[in-house]
């Protein structure tokens, strides 16, 4: 494989014919070689999903790199920039596939929609929960209910309870990942401000739950 500087990558990928083809072949190899490391925390190479996902992501990465070549600012090595794009595509795709699969399983296995186990577990105070903790939780929950807009609440429920991936939740809410993050950021700021107004800090509230 040819060792290229950032400038060589850009010029070779913008060239015609054999030069471009060789650059694309090298880049394909680099992306496919890096992806198993990127996926190692989430997917075993033995999984049936692994090889098709690597192929699909590699192909999509090359297309996106060519499409976004002009946006590369040279703040890192070109290959790091390419790996970054591959990582975004791979994890988005993996989350989407996993979430779709589990949703399908739920639909197949249950005629009625399942209530996630941790919600059931949270419904009743545990034996170790004190009156003080229960009061604090009720107070914080009341503040949340008052402070969150319906959209913020919807986002929180989708992401935290149903484990819907960020991209999927954004799609469902007819927005994008960036705007959804901002929505939650605003919600956090509102809650932080309200707690401060009530003379509380998040740390104080949390420590109330850690008391035995």
């Amino acid at each position: 494989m040819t060792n290229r500087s950032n400038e060589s990558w850009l010029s070779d990928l913008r060239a015609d014919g054999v030069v471009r083809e060789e650059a694309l072949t090298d880049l394909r190899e680099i992306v496919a070689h890096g992806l198993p490391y990127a996926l190692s925390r989430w997917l075993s190479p033995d999984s049936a999903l692994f090889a098709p996902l690597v192929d699909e992501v590699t192909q999509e990465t090359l297309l996106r790199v060519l499409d976004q070549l002009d946006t590369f600012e040279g703040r890192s090595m070109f290959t790091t920039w390419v790996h970054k794009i591959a990582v975004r595509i791979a994890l988005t795709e993996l989350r989407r596939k996993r979430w779709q699969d589990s949703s399908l399983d739920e639909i197949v296995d249950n005629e009625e929609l399942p209530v996630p186990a941790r919600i059931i577990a949270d419904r009743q105070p545990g034996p170790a929960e004190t009156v003080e903790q229960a009061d604090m939780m009720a107070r914080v929950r009341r503040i949340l209910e008052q402070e969150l807009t319906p959209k913020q609440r919807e986002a929180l429920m989708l992401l935290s309870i149903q484990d819907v991936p960020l991209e999927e939740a954004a799609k469902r809410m007819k927005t994008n990942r960036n705007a959804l993050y901002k929505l939650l950021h605003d919600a956090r700021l509102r809650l932080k401000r309200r707690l401060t107004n009530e003379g509380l800090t998040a740390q104080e509230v949390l420590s109330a739950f850690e008391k035995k």
Partner: protein
Amino acid sequence: MNIKDLIQSIRHRFQREQELPDEVVKGFLRVLDKVRKEETTCNEVFAQLDEYVEKEVHGKDAAHLMPLLREHLDICSHCCDEYEALLDVLEETAKE
């Protein structure tokens, strides 16, 4: 209305009636201390992630040099996953 839409509409109704579980409330509280007024969006983080991770791999104090990005990573699990995955790629390929 097809079956998928029907299921979604039932889910949405279920969602509205569901109170926020304790773990969601606690999870929300856990990140509050790190929330600042100035925000870095997921797109801004993504734009600089390659630079940030390279700094780390080269032994520089990336969190100190790019604090807003670090704060976003502490709060946003999706961006943090991407950061960790990219770090794994660079660290592991460097060992070869």
